[in-house]
């Protein structure tokens, strides 16, 4: 009788285990330090049993000579090794791993906190820092404390303009930023089964904002079909009775559009309470809400209209971008007055482009609104794609219409 984390990690909650890592990935941000640490460790070999990935997504393309030089060194290393390398513009690491790479039951570690995203597939996926990643490059293994789990029971279906992001903000707001520290979240119940993979990715993605080590869905028919379309034959994971340290029940039909206000992800309010707040920028994208379904939904709301504030839309990957071109979604977005950026993290981390000026306010579909994150003196409000579209049209925080 185990939680999914216990089953995948092969141990009981609280136990320390050493485990082989199935897939390990790093990006241009964490990869630089990982390479340095790996060299200092002796750096004469890479683990052959672990699939290793290096994906450039944080500052793409490089914004200046310093960044370009750091990326050059990492790129040359990746190309001289048997790592799977994705250069600038291919997409956000988590998104690339979700496009037919991550599979149920795998242990996946990324050198990025949002690696929890891949729990959507029934994998145990978690984030580490650069030196832990270097040791995985070297040995193919790392240690884990098998986490206790928090059960999040989902029931019902979304109504009105509510979407997965609102549900994610709801549970982070309820648990708090450290509500699940050292623990894993498990999303269960018929409401979980009714969610698409894209929606599950949003919920898993935000789990680290409640401090969680992982955020897992059991692989089910939705997972089997999604991966089947990408050429994989996988089996569903059947939940067993198990012990949760905490349980939370959420009825999806009670969810309304929400906003996380500066500077905490767990300070969550209904959009209606903030309606009318003027904004300077809207950003649609990231590993939270930059998928094709997000961009298509956004386009559906702005098509034939004009945004009234600067609006940056960034597809999470080249595959997403291609799909928006193929279906005409990209044209709808451009014709509504938005601009687009290179597939990648965009301004979410405030490293390079799309950052805020002092006193500016951004409504973003990302996952973090920490102080100064998108630029010194700028403020970030986090919301859904629907809220972003409505707000971009009005130039102020706006409750999305039911469509």
């Amino acid at each position: 009788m185990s939680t999914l984390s216990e089953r995948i990690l092969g141990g009981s909650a609280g136990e320390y285990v050493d485990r082989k890592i199935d897939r390990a990935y790093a990006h241009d941000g964490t990869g630089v330090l990982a390479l340095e640490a790996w060299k200092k460790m002796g750096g004469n070999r890479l683990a052959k049993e672990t699939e290793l990935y290096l994906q450039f997504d944080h500052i793409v393309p490089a914004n200046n000579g310093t960044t370009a030089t750091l990326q050059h060194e990492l790129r040359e290393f990746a190309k001289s090794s048997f790592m799977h390398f994705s250069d600038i513009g291919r997409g956000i690491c988590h998104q690339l791993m979700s496009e037919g790479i991550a599979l149920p039951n795998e242990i996946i570690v990324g050198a990025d906190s949002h690696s929890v995203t891949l729990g959507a597939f029934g994998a145990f996926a978690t984030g580490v820092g650069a030196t832990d990643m270097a040791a995985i490059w070297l040995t193919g293994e790392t240690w884990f404390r098998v986490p206790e789990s928090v059960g999040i029971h989902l029931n019902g279906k979304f109504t009105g303009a509510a979407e997965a992001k609102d549900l994610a903000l709801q549970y982070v707001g309820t648990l708090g930023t450290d509500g699940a520290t050292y623990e894993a979240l498990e999303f269960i119940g018929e409401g979980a089964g009714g969610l698409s993979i894209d929606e599950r990715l949003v919920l898993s993605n935000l789990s680290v904002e409640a401090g969680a080590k992982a955020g897992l869905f059991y692989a089910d028919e939705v997972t089997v079909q999604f991966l089947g379309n990408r050429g994989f034959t996988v089996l569903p994971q059947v939940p067993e009775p198990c012990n949760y340290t905490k349980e939370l029940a959420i009825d999806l039909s009670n969810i309304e559009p929400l906003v996380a206000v500066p500077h905490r992800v767990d300070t969550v309010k209904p959009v209606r309470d903030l309606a009318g707040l003027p904004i300077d920028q809207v950003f649609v994208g990231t590993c939270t809400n930059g998928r094709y379904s997000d961009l298509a939904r956004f386009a559906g709301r702005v098509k034939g209209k004009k945004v009234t504030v600067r609006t940056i839309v960034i597809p999470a990957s080249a595959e997403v971008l291609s799909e928006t071109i193929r279906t005409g979604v990209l044209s709808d977005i451009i014709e509504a007055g938005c601009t687009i950026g290179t597939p990648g993290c965009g301004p979410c981390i405030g490293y390079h482009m799309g950052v805020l000026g002092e006193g500016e306010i951004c409504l973003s579909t990302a996952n973090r609104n920490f102080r100064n994150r998108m630029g010194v003196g700028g403020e970030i409000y986090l919301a859904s794609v629907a809220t972003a579209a409505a707000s971009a049209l009005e130039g102020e925080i706006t409750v999305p219409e039911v469509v």
Partner: protein
Amino acid sequence: MQHEMRGDPPGDFQRARPGSGHAVCVPADIDTDLVIAGRYLRTKDRSIWAAHVFEDLDPALAPRLKGAVIVAGKNFGCGSSREQAAIAIREAGAVAVIAPSFARIFFRNAINIGLPLIEADIICSDGSPVRFSLDDGWVESGGKRHAIRPLSPRMREILAAGGLVEYWRSHT
């Protein structure tokens, strides 16, 4: 300096012996963006991280960190996996961080780079002396001795080696 410790048997390392410093208080839920902002990450120059540590929280903190024991509120180091946060604190001269809880990636990162973390709930009095012993499991502040939550055996080994780089240099 850490490399000189390579090969020392676990437990013999200086960091395991009692440590001390002046308290520098920081609030709860400090995220790693506040420890070191994204705009300073595009470099391998550690002195830049040390110079700008906690800048967006309080620019006056960095110069006070030499020999300091940071006493933080709960959930210290939440958010981004950036290891530069732990490195910045160590490079600025802090000897340890004490908090009731740490975000888990920061926890691993700090131990991995040889920065002792102490899970304990103590009242911070800015500037007052704090002493601690990781081996014996206590921290002393304001005349009171508090028990600390012990590190896992593996984390103790990594810390004793001086960090994960040194740990693997001696294990491979």
